[in-house]
């Protein structure tokens, strides 16, 4: 019977039912990965030094949750300000006015070129450079004088440092997005009589978003973790609050696990949000074609499609 169907497959007028190519190395690799994963999981469960009971005790601890909240706050504020600064400096960078474009280039050069840690400590110590900050007209009368020491709290220094640094990276991302929009789109918009700002809002930015969002999501996730640097300013965000606890009870590993669990949970939520936003800005893409499917398609070399293409 089996030979019967095989013979039938040889007839040129029958539907092709070829025997698929065998991939022994793919099977070997899968088996190896499964074994390694099993070993890792077993050790996590059986090794008592993980101290999971301590992890459980501190996971919902009040000061840990407060720390998490601060981390989320700093991430949100820094990203919102960073994206705004990024759009502003990307547009300035593309200006035909040399003063504006060079100022933007200088900003990007400086804030990408120095370590964030240095910038944070710098803002924190701004009062050493400018003891007072005066509000008034440039080179003119002064209306109010503020003490830099009271104005630049650790919170303000943290926000300034994170946002200004993020703005420099975002400016480059936004710029790449804007230049990715073909010139014909601008010409079509112009020929309809659209103004420059209308063209920017309705034609350029929505299309640029497709290029802007993946790296922005990346940066938001990075920011969530980078914000732990503000622990040097003694701000009790997630990392600093677990450091305080393990400074007292010396349970370093379990408490770092607590922080890691929260960081992982938060990044997972951000990743899901990123996927949703990407879909929103690609209304013309096939909704059935997932991000993963597109990635796989572009990773594998173009062979004849044996499986039915969706």
């Amino acid at each position, binding site marked *: 019977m089996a030979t019967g169907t095989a013979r039938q497959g040889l007839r040129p007028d029958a539907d092709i039912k070829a025997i698929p190519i065998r991939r022994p190395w793919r099977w070997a690799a899968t088996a190896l990965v499964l074994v390694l994963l099993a070993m890792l999981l077993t050790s996590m469960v059986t090794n008592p030094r993980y101290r999971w009971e301590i992890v459980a005790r501190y996971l919902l601890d009040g000061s840990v949750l407060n720390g998490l909240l601060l981390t989320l706050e700093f991430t949100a504020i820094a990203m919102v300000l960073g994206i705004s600064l990024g759009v502003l400096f990307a547009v300035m960078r593309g200006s035909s006015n040399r003063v504006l474009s060079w100022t933007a280039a200088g900003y990007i050069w400086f804030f990408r070129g120095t370590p964030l840690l240095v910038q944070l400590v710098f803002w924190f110590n701004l009062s050493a450079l400018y003891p007072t900050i005066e509000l008034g007209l440039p080179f003119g009368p002064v209306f109010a004088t503020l003490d830099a020491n009271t104005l630049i709290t650790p919170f303000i220094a943290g926000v300034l440092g994170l946002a200004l640094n993020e703005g420099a990276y975002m400016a480059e991302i936004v710029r790449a997005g804007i230049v990715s929009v073909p010139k014909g*789109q601008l010409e079509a918009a112009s020929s*309809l009589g659209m103004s420059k700002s209308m063209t920017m809002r309705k034609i350029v930015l929505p299309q640029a978003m497709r290029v802007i969002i993946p790296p922005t999501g990346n940066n938001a996730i990075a920011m969530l973790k980078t914000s732990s640097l503000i622990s040097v300013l003694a701000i009790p965000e997630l990392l600093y609050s677990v450091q305080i606890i393990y400074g007292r009870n010396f349970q370093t590993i379990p408490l770092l696990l607590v922080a890691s669990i929260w960081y992982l949970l938060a990044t997972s939520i951000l990743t899901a949000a990123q996927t949703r936003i990407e879909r929103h800005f690609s209304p013309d893409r096939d909704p059935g074609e997932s991000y993963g499917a597109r990635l796989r398609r572009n990773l594998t070399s173009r062979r004849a499609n044996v499986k039915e293409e969706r």
Partner: protein
Amino acid sequence: MSALVRAEGVHKHYGRNHVLKGIDLSLEEGQVMCLVGPSGSGKSTFLRCVNHLEAINRGRLWVDGELIGYRQSAEALHELGDKEVCRQRERIGMVFQSFNLFPHYTALENVALGPSLVKKESRAAATAHAEELLRRVGLGDKLHSYPARLSGGQQQRVAIARALAMRPRLMLFDEPTSALDPELVGEVLDVMRGLAGDGMTMIVVTHEMAFAREVGDTLVFMDDGVIVESGDPREVLARPRHQRTQAFLSKVL
């Protein structure tokens, strides 16, 4: 009767590259002018000067009695502001070789966008008019398709509807069928033929000599930035006077 489009001594250069070397022409309302010539002859550049996508370097260009891109006072020529240029372009529709539909909007949204944003028409009115135009170009069943899901011919017909939605006085076509598969050229030319029949004033840069012969009121042959000869399309195509025209036509006909 004054011409709808009038060009006097129009020059355009990009650095040392002199693309237009003194173009004089005029086009009456309701007429169709076909611009033909070898690539690099400056015909597309001239078309882009008419709606000020390119600024001219010398000469004058009027559409509907208005100087394009500039304002002349007693002693000087002033650049027009963004707003004024936009107002001038509203009345000049343009169709591109590569369609340039907005990929993130549906066919209907592409067509309704200009009237609702630029002319501040109500959303309902703009959409109704857009729907009517899309039916007119034979795309009543593709209203909610995104450009990526349309064939080249369909995309170009949406692009024509998009330009018409602004109720232009003049339509510019920049090689509208050059990017299309041969079997799709006809459907776009049919729409253009219909437009010409309705009395739309059109300037068409094209390589479709049959279309020029049938629909055009004037044929202008350009080469190397100048108008070599112009006249009744049947006349020019049948008996080209100039040797450069003869050489060009012998290659494309």
